[in-house]
């Protein structure tokens, strides 16, 4: 790992023959780690796929309870942070002076993402969309007399007087929101770890650790950051944009 190296010059840890071998090994190590991350999130995406296939109506209805505006803003913010991260990597590779600035900007954007995410979570609490005993997905788009709190019910826009259908809908919506919190929560956790890594890079960069000859830590943290962004690029349409085409 990058911590093995202690100087900005092309000094390498004792187990490596030269700096190039170290750079190759560290980069391969990060790619291999990202492979494990793909499999980790893969479990979540598999569960999502299976349940969306099983309960399309509930997933579509639940998706309308997510805030597309906030989610969209967050998507833009995160893509922007990927840009600043790429600029930081470039600056480190050419020995430019902007490394610290770009890293700080990336951290700022990442923090903004988490802040907006927290606001969204808060709204979900207020709307009783936390899975559990008090979960209740209301649907304002439905006429009041068809609200599940009332007597009659609808499922996915199809009027139904069957309370069993509504109960199923509520249950399946809980599965959607369980997946929503697990997937975005795991993503957020990875963002927090990424922010920690960025903070460490900022400290190292300020001490002049990086140079065109030694910029591997910035590069591999960059890989990690881009990976976390890409996860969100999949999460956003899968969670927020179901059945929005109409």
């Amino acid at each position, binding site marked *: *790992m990058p*911590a*093995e190296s202690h100087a900005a010059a092309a000094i390498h*840890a*004792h*187990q*490596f*023959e030269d700096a190039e*071998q170290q750079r*190759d*090994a*560290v980069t*391969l*190590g990060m790619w*291999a*780690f990202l*492979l*494990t*991350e*793909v*499999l*980790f*999130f*893969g*479990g*979540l995406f*598999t*569960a999502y796929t*299976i*349940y969306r296939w*099983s*309960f399309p109506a509930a997933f579509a209805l639940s998706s309308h309870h997510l805030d597309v505006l906030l989610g969209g803003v967050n998507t833009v913010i995160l893509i922007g942070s990927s840009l600043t991260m790429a600029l930081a990597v470039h600056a480190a590779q050419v020995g430019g002076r902007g490394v610290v600035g770009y890293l700080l900007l990336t951290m700022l954007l990442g923090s903004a993402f988490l802040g907006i995410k927290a606001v969204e979570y808060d709204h979900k609490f207020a709307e009783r969309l936390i*899975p*559990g*005993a008090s979960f209740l997905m209301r649907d304002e788009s439905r006429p009041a007399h068809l609200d599940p709190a009332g007597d009659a019910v609808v499922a996915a826009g199809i009027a139904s007087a069957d309370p069993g259908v509504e109960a*199923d809908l509520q*249950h*399946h919506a*809980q*599965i959607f929101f*369980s*997946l929503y*919190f*697990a997937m975005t929560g*795991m993503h957020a956790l990875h963002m927090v770890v990424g922010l920690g890594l960025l903070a460490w890079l900022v400290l190292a960069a300020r001490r002049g650790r990086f140079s065109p000859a030694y910029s591997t830590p910035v590069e591999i943290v960059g890989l990690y950051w881009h990976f976390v962004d890409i996860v969100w690029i999949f999460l956003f349409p899968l969670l927020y944009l179901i059945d929005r085409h109409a």
Partner: protein
Amino acid sequence: MSDRTPATHYLNVSYGIRSWLFTRDHKRIALLYLASVTLMFLVGGSFAAMVRLELLTPAGDLFQADTYNKIFTLHGIVMVFFFLIPGIPAVLGNFLVPMMIGAKDLAFPRLNLLSWYLFNLGALFTLFNIVIGGVDTGWTFYTPYSTTWTTTNIVPVALGIFVTGFSSILTGLNFIVTIHKMRAPGLTWFRLPLFIWAHYATSVIIMLGTPVLAITIVLLALERVFHLGFFDPALGGDPVLFQHFFWFYSHPAVYIMILPAMGVISEIVTCFSRKRIYGYPFVAASSLAIALLGFLVWGHHMFVSSQSVFAGLVFSVLSFLVAIPSAVKVFNWTATLYKGSISFETPMLYVFGFLGLFTIGGLTGLMLACLGIDVHVHDTYFIVAHFHYIMVGGTVMGYLGGLHFWWPKISGRLYPEGWGRLSALIIFVGFNLTFFPQFILGYLGMPRRYHAYPEEFQVLNVMSTAGASILGVGYLIPLVYLVWCMRDGKVASSNPFGATGLEWQTPAPPPTENFPSPPRVTEEAYAYDKIPIPGGGAYAG
């Protein structure tokens, strides 16, 4: 190459507890792992002893049913996650992978040390949980019992396994990067010892499988603690999805256990036959084939769940396919023996044990891959016997064989050959007496995981318990003499068995940097036709 113990080597280069707890030397970390893994083996073994004691009599008279549930659960969890999976890679692999490829250390020594700490953290979590009340779901944690109904400590144990999974991932990642990037000049892929191929394939499985177990545990914990719904049938969730996730890791995990043992066998069988391995590329490629196919067969654990019959058929066929690379290995080892100058030192005795027991375990595996037979013997002692033939008869035989084979290199001392052969024999006899009766018990219909059974099963159960006692003695003997000979054994030369391989071309014990000067490889592995037999073939221990 020197035949004397060097003045400084990795064991005496520094002293004190700190020099071990903060070491980054892969050889020292291997020994740290050896201590941890052995401890967990003893813990898991004592649970096994309790199981066998309870089953001595038909009545459930030693433990109550609930206690018994916890005991077999903890036996499974400790043995699988804390002994069999880390055993060979973290101990022998850690010690040998850099030496076999001519590197000074693994690519990431700090991660290697971190991996040992994570392992211990996970193990402590689990042991702590044992003290405060245990867990009774079986090592498989099937939902919804584990998420909704049981009152035992699912989450601490699951956390322990989660953390230990990371130690596994770090080891696998380290091996993959090291094998790719740090081979000595001249050491091309097809010159690598087969031990390295086996560990490479193992690492691939670890990297692809363990993260799935990690997310499965996360989902399990979220469901149990925060009542999120993923597998809960009350919400329309599918408990069988948990089984799919669990076995997507836990079936390949069997290959995490057996592949490194196969690597050990390839090294030993060539050395004590004084021959090149028969069909090197096939043995090497079969490791990768097992790693790949191993990911496609998990459904054979679920033939009697709600999985569709069609899925069952597909998984059945795919499971049969795993037999092909496994058989390639067994046949090639056997062909290596043909016309070899075979000698019967302790490591070789374990190889013969492995060959016979793994074959029995593998062939009964084929029986179980047949849908009809599996439905008949599902959840009986037939299954228990089958996987113990693979895990204990295969993995533990390979592990012990490897420990003996490389012990002179690890410790710089010779183990006592007479005791070695005796204990190998005791283990072989004890093992078969323990587990062969279980095939019969299972076929007759004795289900697993019950503390009481009908009286007609008693004779076979008594045989099994008697065998377990013999097996226990067999395991304790090497534990005693391997520790004893570290200090008091005869000093070993750098290559007492006259083996090929870079690890034998450096002093015993090796220096911290492994090689006094960087090695260079000029030929293929196992050039035994070019090396004379040491001391006329007899290894005087």
